[in-house]
């Protein structure tokens, strides 16, 4: 594996990790695979497009670095907040009433929410991929004989900041600890007087906000996206969450990086292997983990939560 492949793998893996966090946090707290999460991600990307267009004119002139930073920052904040609200509403409307129902019921509802969102976004943005506006003047640097673009650096640093922030929030703040307490024993947490509904809403808020902010990085890095981009990416991110140990936050980060690197590695293989095969490779990983180590890399037998 060359350094090139490793770098592009880490870039992609960082995006998977950000999305995987949303799956894993929600699973950790209510044991639901939130299929709509990937679509919340897509929504974040679409919402951020006009924000960037408003700040950076798309007529070919070069944005200054200051404009770029402002545009990207504003887009991330707007997308994060909108997605957070949408995530909270989805939980409130579609999942909360089913919290004590058999587990298949909310799962089917989640798939339903996902389909609704995808169709709505297809109506809104059309069935074909749309271009993501230019927010950053492309440039690249040569380090250790390999090139690194500024968007790659942006994705890695942005994702790293989000992951560190989340890790601190969950492990160092009292409310983050309450979130873990609810994940570990919901009833006992309620006996402490912790408002479980609030904590679950907060989990959706944070997970969806990460997806929204991550979607901006995705748009800038890949340059275009379609109404179903988040769904596909979500499947890989979900695999990453399972690989790391579903419910485990650090596991999601590690799983995301591994899946990203694996995808870039397989894509780069010659001799008839290549881009057609990475789906197969990634889903083989999913099957293998489910068969041999369902608890994932960092998960415990009792399903390590948040």
């Amino acid at each position, binding site marked *: 594996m060359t350094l090139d492949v490793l770098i592009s793998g880490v870039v992609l893996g960082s995006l998977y990790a950000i999305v995987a966090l949303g799956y894993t946090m929600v699973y950790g707290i209510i044991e639901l695979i939130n299929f709509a999460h990937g679509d919340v991600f897509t929504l974040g990307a679409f919402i951020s497009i006009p924000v960037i267009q408003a700040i950076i004119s798309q007529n070919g002139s070069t944005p200054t670095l200051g404009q770029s930073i402002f545009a990207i920052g504003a887009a991330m904040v707007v997308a994060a907040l909108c997605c957070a609200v949408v995530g909270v509403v989805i939980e409130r409307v579609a999942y909360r009433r089913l919290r004590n129902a058999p587990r298949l019921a909310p799962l089917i509802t989640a798939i339903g929410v996902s389909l609704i969102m995808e169709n709505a976004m297809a109506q809104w943005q059309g069935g074909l991929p749309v271009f993501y506006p230019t927010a950053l003047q492309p440039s690249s640097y040569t380090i250790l004989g390999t090139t690194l673009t500024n968007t790659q650096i942006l994705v890695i640093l942005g994702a790293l900041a989000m992951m560190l922030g989340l890790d601190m929030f969950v492990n160092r703040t009292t409310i983050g600890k309450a979130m873990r307490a609810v994940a570990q*024993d919901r009833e006992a947490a309620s*006996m402490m*007087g912790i408002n479980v509904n609030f904590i679950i809403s907060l989990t959706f808020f944070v997970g969806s906000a990460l997806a929204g902010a991550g979607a901006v990085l995705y748009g800038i890095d890949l340059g275009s996206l379609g109404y179903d981009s988040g769904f596909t990416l979500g499947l890989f991110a979900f695999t990453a969450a399972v690989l790391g140990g579903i419910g485990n936050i650090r596991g999601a980060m590690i799983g995301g990086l591994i899946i990203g690197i694996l995808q870039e590695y397989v894509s780069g293989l010659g001799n008839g292997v290549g881009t057609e095969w990475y789906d197969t490779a990634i889903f083989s990983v999913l099957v293998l983990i489910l068969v041999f180590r369902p608890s994932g890399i960092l998960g415990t037998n009792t399903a390590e939560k948040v």
Partner: protein
Amino acid sequence: MTNESLRHTLEEKQPLLEFRGVDTYYGSLHILKSVDYRVGEGEIVALLGANGAGKTTTMKTILGIVRPRSGQVLFEGKRIDGEQTGRIVEAGIAPVPEGRRVFPRLTVLDNLKMGAWTRKDGQVKQDMDRVYDLFPRLAERKNQQAGTLSGGEQQMLAIGRALMARPRLMIMDEPSMGLSPILTERVFDTVVEINKQGTTIFMVEQNAYMALQVAVRGYVLQTGEVVLADTAPNLLASDMVRKAYLGET
């Protein structure tokens, strides 16, 4: 004081916790049947009963996790049935739940902090020191994950966590469950100590002998009905308790 006069004074004084004709259901299953309890300020009151009698349901009803279908639950004379659990804990009731229910992957320290969740005053640190004084073992292990503690240590943590709420009433659900006789004795000593420091205690126990040693009064629950309510010495002497709970024939 004679039993009569004891009962008399109890009825004069407003109890800290009171159940008035409480009925609870799980679906169509009728669990508590028109139950009355009175727990006076400063008392230790024991709740005895066989498996499935409705003891844990009583605890959950106090905390608002189970809502009575009829009847009233009063704390300091105010109705708390229908209130959110958070409000009830804030009002001054803290549980030591059945099976301890410590947060296994939080540290001892963080478990104690969760116990103080509803506190808004700035004296959490003092109470933490008080818990560590009561259970030096917890101080030694404050950065250890609670799930790796021994059963006895987890029970201490569960009690400590409840104390962190600075409750006026601590409700304990089988604190001696799964503990060795020596540890059971220690837990009961602690209960007496906590009570002496001013906390009222309503305690579910299978170990009737130990419970009635420390309690002033007790209730015997049988398939959801209170069949005996008396002072602890009277209960210890009663045929029913001797047969059912102390293994005498």
